[in-house]
């Protein structure tokens, strides 16, 4: 009998798909699954592409950074796991050539370097790019060294006790850009030559890095194995910590994607809920017949349960395929920006479709399905048998399903919970408001045209239906408005965080008398000189009168900060790009001793406002309390300082100056160096370009995804409208049978829909306004004003979208003879 029920479910599914009974539900599921799958596919591919791109900046997937060479056990383990590995060692050392000595950062790399990304070098044969490392006996140097020492390719260079041939100029090394303020020239040599230089001695300040790359799962398992056994002074680096500006871009992109995913999940759920409701209410009678013919309640539930299961699997598989197609099209359209090398989606992304269809059905079809068990056989004789009470199971199950699905989509449970509770609150508010408005329509005798009166009465006559429709509509409209209007605000704000005129050059070591020369050089190209900021090296010696020791801290960064000098500056007015998060900036012209600290530094050193700090600057003690903490945008490419003092107090101190600017033309930096020979100019345009490219690509991908969700939203909205078509069709048939003209019928229908769309649109507008503000402030740390235009826009969008969605219905109404509809009921 069980088997029969399953077979009947399958048979029913085939029939109903053919006859169109399941069209709305199947379409709603298909659209939902396709939207979710394409988002999943796209996100998955972009994510792995980004991770790959990001690993290029690290030259590996994972780096083990230690003070001693990598232990043999680590390397054996990596090899056993099929991971590729390359050891590197970096340390500062003097480079001797042409009877000069210059301090450089040496990096010894083994062959196979880099594991991710490519090096770009210029040899005598020309420029080449790929996986290259210096051959034994050869070194490569960057432009800074070549320029400083006047070297040419082929020259001899001595490192320690060994001579090398300068074989190439390094144009780009993937992991070379990790430190933006890396002013010291760089030299690359082969790892095998390291011992021969004699530079590796006990106490040498050498950083050993073991670069590791391979299959993502293997890398993760390696990381999990290694992390617990690392000693102090050894740390793991991955892309998340390699580049803060790239990390913040990735983070924001993930959140944008999560937002689209949540919206598509919500849209789909609303449509599926409505479609299931419609389908089952139309099959009430069939269930009663089966019960009368002797099917038991569990058998009946199995018939329809299996039908939904089959449908879920079918829609899941087809939707996943459609989603893949949509995503492939998207990638094709965006290939110019995304490149051809997007990795294929992982197998988990393929599961998204079928699984989400089943979860959606479980959440939204199961409760009414279980209610089918309570359909009395008596209903074959009388149509007015009560259907049994509503239970709380439905919304609860739906909520759990939504939460699970969403958390799974964005891989961030708390964020999903946060957004869903917001959504839940919105739905509750909409439900209450809609209920109130419907009641009002019921009570208040409306005067005016017959259409408006009947339209309003139609809504009031079925309050539950009206509330459900308004809620579904407002969620859909909310999604549409968020996607169209709020999206622009958000993405725009994000892109503006790195403006087109962001500085691409740093100038350091400018002496005070040279500031006039600097102004002149800029004036020659018709530009005003950038603000030159004083900078001096300072060492923190005491906190609240107690000497500072590295041993007081376990954090490696804190230890580094208290044992090394770092840059300190002074100024009068606050930097508008810095945000004061605690305390107050001093009055202009203040001579009171005090410090303003960067928030991150304060956290690392466990300092707070009110602490008294003592700095040693060139042998002089400077003691003052901390009066403010600042938040600094490190990705702004502007000079920033950990510690700032008032000019009135510290201004007389000897200092060199630093400035950042955007070079007006290609030769400008060279001319500047010629005019001011002692200054160092650092060109960071490559890094700025790289970060901008990352942001632009992400923004494009996200916009493409928004467009997709938007399309899904329109389709799902249509499905939601179709779900209540029967009720309307019947009403209209009755009106026409009673002698209403087509024009009257149309006006009744349009009025009802206008009420519906208007009310839903108004609420959606308010919701989108609040959501946009919340998301901007809470999730993206972006400032955003309330956009009041969303309210009228929402009403307009609601009215038009509903009218558009109802167009097929209006047509059908005027073309279906009323007798047909009435007889069918």
């Amino acid at each position: 009998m069980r088997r029969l029920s399953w077979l009947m479910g399958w048979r029913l599914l085939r029939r109903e798909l053919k006859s169109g009974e399941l069209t709305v539900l199947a379409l709603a599921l298909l659209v939902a699954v396709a939207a979710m799958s394409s988002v999943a596919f796209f996100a998955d591919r972009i994510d792995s592409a980004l991770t790959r791109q990001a690993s290029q900046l690290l030259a590996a997937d994972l780096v083990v950074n230690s003070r001693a060479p990598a232990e043999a056990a680590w390397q054996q383990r990596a090899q056993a796991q099929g991971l590729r590995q390359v050891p590197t060692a970096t340390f500062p050392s003097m480079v001797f050539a042409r009877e000069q000595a210059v301090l450089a950062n040496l990096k010894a790399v083994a062959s196979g370097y880099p594991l991710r990304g490519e090096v770009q070098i210029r040899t005598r044969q020309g420029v080449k790019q790929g996986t290259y490392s210096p051959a034994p006996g050869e070194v490569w140097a960057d432009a800074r060294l070549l320029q400083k020492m006047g070297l040419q390719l082929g020259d001899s260079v001595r490192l320690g006790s060994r001579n090398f041939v300068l074989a190439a100029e390094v144009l780009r090394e993937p992991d070379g850009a990790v430190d933006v303020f890396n002013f010291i020239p760089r030299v690359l040599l082969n790892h095998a030559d390291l011992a021969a230089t004699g530079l590796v001695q006990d106490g040498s300040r050498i950083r050993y890095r073991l670069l590791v790359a391979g299959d993502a799962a293997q890398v993760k398992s390696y990381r999990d194995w290694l992390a617990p056994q690392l000693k102090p002074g050894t740390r793991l680096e991955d892309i998340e910590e390699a580049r803060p500006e790239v990390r913040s871009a990735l983070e924001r992109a993930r959140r944008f994607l999560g937002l689209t995913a949540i919206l598509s999940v919500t849209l789909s759920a609303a449509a599926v809920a409505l479609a299931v409701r419609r389908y089952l209410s139309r099959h009430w009678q069939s269930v009663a017949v089966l019960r009368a013919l002797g099917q038991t309640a569990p058998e009946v539930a199995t018939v329809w349960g299996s039908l939904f299961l089959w449908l879920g699997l079918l829609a899941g598989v087809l939707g996943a395929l459609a989603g893949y197609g949509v995503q492939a099209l998207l990638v094709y359209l965006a290939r110019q920006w995304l490149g051809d090398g997007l990795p294929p989606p992982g197998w988990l992304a393929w599961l998204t479709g079928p699984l989400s269809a089943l979860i959606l059905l479980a959440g939204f079809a199961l409760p009414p399905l279980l209610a089918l068990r309570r359909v009395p056989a008596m209903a074959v004789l009388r149509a007015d048998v009560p259907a049994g009470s509503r239970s709380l199971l439905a919304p609860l199950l739906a909520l759990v399903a939504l939460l699970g699905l969403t958390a799974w989509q964005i891989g961030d449970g708390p964020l999903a919970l946060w957004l869903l509770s917001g959504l839940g609150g919105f739905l509750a508010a909409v439900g209450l408001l809609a209920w109130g408005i419907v009641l009002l329509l019921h009570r208040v005798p409306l005067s005016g045209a017959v259409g408006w009166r009947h339209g309003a009465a139609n809504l009031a006559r079925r309050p539950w239906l009206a509330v459900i429709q308004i809620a579904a509509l407002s969620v859909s409209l909310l999604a549409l408005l968020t996607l169209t209007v709020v999206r622009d605000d958000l993405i725009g704000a994000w892109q503006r965080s790195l403006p087109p005129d962001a500085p691409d050059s740093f100038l350091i070591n400018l002496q005070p008398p040279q500031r006039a020369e600097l102004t002149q050089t800029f004036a020659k190209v018709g530009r005003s000189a950038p603000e030159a900021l004083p900078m001096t090296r300072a060492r923190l010696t005491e906190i609240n009168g107690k000497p500072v020791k590295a041993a007081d801290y376990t954090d490696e960064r804190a230890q580094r900060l208290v044992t090394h000098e770092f840059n300190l500056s002074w100024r009068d007015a606050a930097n508008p790009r810095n945000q004061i998060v605690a305390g107050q900036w001093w009055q202009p012209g203040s001579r009171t001793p005090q410090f303003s600290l960067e928030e991150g530094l304060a956290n690392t050193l466990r300092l707070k406002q009110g602490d008294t700090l003592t700095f040693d600057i060139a042998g002089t003690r400077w003691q003052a309390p901390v009066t403010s903490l600042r938040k600094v945008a490190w990705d702004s490419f502007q000079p920033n300082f950990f510690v700032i003092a008032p000019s009135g107090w510290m201004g007389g101190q000897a200092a060199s100056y630093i400035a950042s600017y955007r070079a007006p033309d290609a030769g400008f930096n060279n001319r500047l160096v010629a005019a001011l020979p002692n200054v160092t100019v650092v060109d960071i345009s490559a890094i700025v370009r790289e970060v901008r490219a990352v942001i632009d690509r992400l923004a494009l991908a996200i916009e493409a995804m928004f467009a997709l969700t938007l399309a899904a939203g329109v389709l799902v909205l249509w499905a939601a409208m179709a779900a209540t078509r029967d009720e309307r069709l019947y009403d209209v048939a009755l009106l026409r049978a009673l002698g209403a003209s087509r024009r009257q019928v149309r006006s009744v229908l349009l009025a009802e829909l206008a009420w519906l769309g208007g009310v839903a649109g108004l609420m959606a507008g308010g919701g989108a306004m609040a959501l946009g503000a919340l998301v901007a402030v809470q999730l993206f740390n972006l400032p955003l004003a309330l956009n009041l235009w969303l309210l009228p826009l929402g009403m307009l969008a609601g009215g038009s979208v509903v009218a558009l969605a109802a167009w097929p219905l209006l047509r059908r109404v005027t073309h279906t003879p009323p007798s047909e509809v009435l007889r069918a009921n």
Partner: protein
Amino acid sequence: MTSSSVNSAILRAQAVTRQVSYHGQQLAILHDASLAVAAGESVAIVGASGSGKSTLLAILAGLDAASSGEVWLAGQPLSALDEDGRALLRREQVGFVFQNFQLMPQFTALENVMLPLELAGRADARNAAAAMLQRVGLGHRLDHYPRHLSGGEQQRVALARAFVLRPALLFADEPTGNLDPATGQQIIELLFELNAEAGTALVLVTHDTTLAARCAAVYRLTAGVLARGEA
């Protein structure tokens, strides 16, 4: 009512009462109704609209439960069975013909007739159903869906579905109520023919006294009170 007819009764109702609560008041739709139907016997229940005919039918067929009293179907007291138990009993013993046909709209004529056979686990469901449709004159419309059949044809399918298992008892609820007189007449002829062939007991609910007169016994339901009337 003779003692032999009571013993061999396929259906027996004893003092069946049905009350509903309406605005806090108890209304009796059925009051102390008793009847017996012997195997193969045909019984008509007549009454005006609203007299409680459908309620009585529902209780006799186990579709609804009585407030008090007892119904024995094929010797089994219905009050001792739960809804699923009654469903299984219906599956084995009962056939239905409804005023509004109640065919499954998503199934073809053949599949509608196969339904009770399949529910009973019959392996030859397809052949038996096809033969039955042949018998009611629809051998050429096996694969048609209900919406493509006329009212008379739909009721023939319903008759085929009702008789295909040769049930011990058939309930017919106004079987001609939705049909024109000529078609209704044909359906009635067919109903009685099939009834005779299968040896099925028939409980016919109708307001048509001429139709009722064709049954062996007639009960009249007036405002919830059932009385044995003239044949």
